[in-house]
């Protein structure tokens, strides 16, 4: 459900610093759906590191209403970590701002089973959520019903986690620079 389609518009989507000083890393996904769990697994691992203490949240099986409610409640900049169909090779990842990618919002065809992350973000934005939203998207190998990640994704997990860690560290450094400057 949370495997939203996204079409990357520009080639270079390196994220700039998050606005604000109290950002969250949010894992999004559905357990029991193969690589759709990647966001949850990555953020669970990240949360074990001291520097992420209190900064990690999980949105399991979140529909659009839950995503929008959470964003509006938190009112903080967020890094959403999720499986995303970006037309990349499986296992590849991208870090981008929600404003730099066209998330496919199924405005006319939504059912409550199908209202996913993209619709949740759109709903939160429409309701006035104006904080930065960064997305760390991972192209899944397989999201069909299955316990745990695919073997291929599990093999790549350490390198993807390192990349997420690096991306978040860069944001934190930028944030510190902003605070100092």
């Amino acid at each position: 459900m949370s495997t939203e389609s996204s079409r990357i518009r520009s080639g270079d989507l390196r994220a700039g610093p998050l606005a604000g000083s109290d950002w969250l890393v949010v894992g999004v996904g559905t357990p029991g759906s193969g690589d759709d769990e990647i966001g949850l697994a990555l953020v669970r691992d990240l949360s074990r590191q001291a520097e992420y203490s209190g900064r990690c949240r999980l949105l399991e099986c979140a529909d659009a209403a839950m995503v929008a409610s959470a964003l509006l409640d938190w009112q903080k900049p967020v890094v959403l970590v999720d499986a995303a169909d970006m037309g990349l090779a499986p296992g590849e990842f991208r870090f981008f701002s929600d404003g730099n990618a066209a998330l496919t919002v199924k405005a006319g065809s939504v059912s409550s089973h199908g209202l996913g992350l993209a619709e949740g973000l759109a709903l939160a934005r429409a309701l006035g959520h104006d904080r930065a939203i960064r997305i760390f998207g991972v192209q899944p190998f397989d999201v069909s019903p299955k316990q745990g990640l695919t073997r291929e994704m599990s093999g790549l997990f350490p390198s993807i986690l390192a990349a997420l860690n690096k991306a978040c560290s860069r944001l934190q450094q930028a944030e510190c620079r902003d605070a100092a400057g």
Partner: protein
Amino acid sequence: MDLREKTFNIDVNHVTRVEGHGRIIVSTREGAVKEVKLSITEANRFFENFVKGMNPSQIPWIVSRICGICCVGHQMTATKAVESALGIEVSPQTVLLRKLLTESQFMQSHLLHVYFLAVPDYLGVQSVLPLAKTHPEVVKRALRLKKLSNDYTTVFGGRMLHPMANTLKGWRKLPDLDAVAGLRKRLLDAIPDLKETVRIMKTLKIPPYERETEYVSLKHPDEYALYDGAVYSSDTKSSVPVDEYRDVTNEFTVAHCTTKWSRWHRDSYFVGALARVNNNFEQLLPEAKQAADELGLKVPCYNPYMNNVAQVVEVVHCAYNGVRMLDEVLGGGLKAEDVAYEVKAGRGVGSCEVPRGILFHDYTFDENGRCVDANAVIPTSQNINNVEQDMKAFVPEMLPGMSREELTLHMEMLLRAYDPCISCSVHMLDVEFVD
């Protein structure tokens, strides 16, 4: 346009804002209706086969996965069926907790359907997304109420989707009483939002089409039947035990649907919020009756579009009844119970009302406690026949005064009014080859 000139085909290949894939086909020739069909083309789900060989306690958690919206209902109904098969009696505390969990899901599902799937029709927008721009307060209220009902389920079920706290004979982990008290306060705080929901609903222009049909729901002597009761028909004004559900549903197949159809005393019957309100109006709480009155819902009501109004009435009932039941929990406290049970061979049928109507589960176990047979009859599969009968009745009425586009919208709204869960309704067809 002259009625005699009205020749067109409507083929809505994928009806939006319903759960699953439904198709509406309408064909008219020179003002005469030639064909009206509601076609369900989703693939079978095979849950009744998945559970074969499973042990009794696994089944309620597995069949909960039939649906992400009605997961509590499937779990409760399966739990009751399995307990019936094994001769397990449950305590009043367990029944109370199950009723709370059940009603939390009514609030979740109805609020989601009314605000996110149905209201956009009436406000002339394609979905809730444009509504967030034009009516932000309405959508924010919807989100608040939805979050409250999600949290309600979490307090009693352990998590919002596919709860794990309920098991055979009782509760694996009892709800935290501080969380229960917090929930009670939030339900009371939400009353202004509920009143505003009724006020908004009152402003919507419900299509005025009526067709009298048979209304089927659970009925209980002491309460508005959601968790328990016998199967009641508005035609006979009497009930039959849930064990006799096959004589109620009389499932059959039609060529254009992968879901089975049902009929009881006539061609089709209606299950869901409107059927429950029609059959059990007197047992609604006074606040819910008042909401029905404000919304112009007088029973018996034969307008299927009013099902959305009945859903709002039930939300009000569940909110106030929730406070009453939470007081009971807080007053009496909760104690851990022994949930050990013994397996034996047997068959059991369970039934609950779920948001979309009456649900039946039926399991048979061998002497080792392995499931050897299973059957589930879902509300949407019981309703599909009635939706198509409504369409056949309404299209000729609507045709003279409506354009193709208006007729299409009204057909989609009709299907959406029933709040169908098509994904749940598709079941393995029993096929017997004859030599």
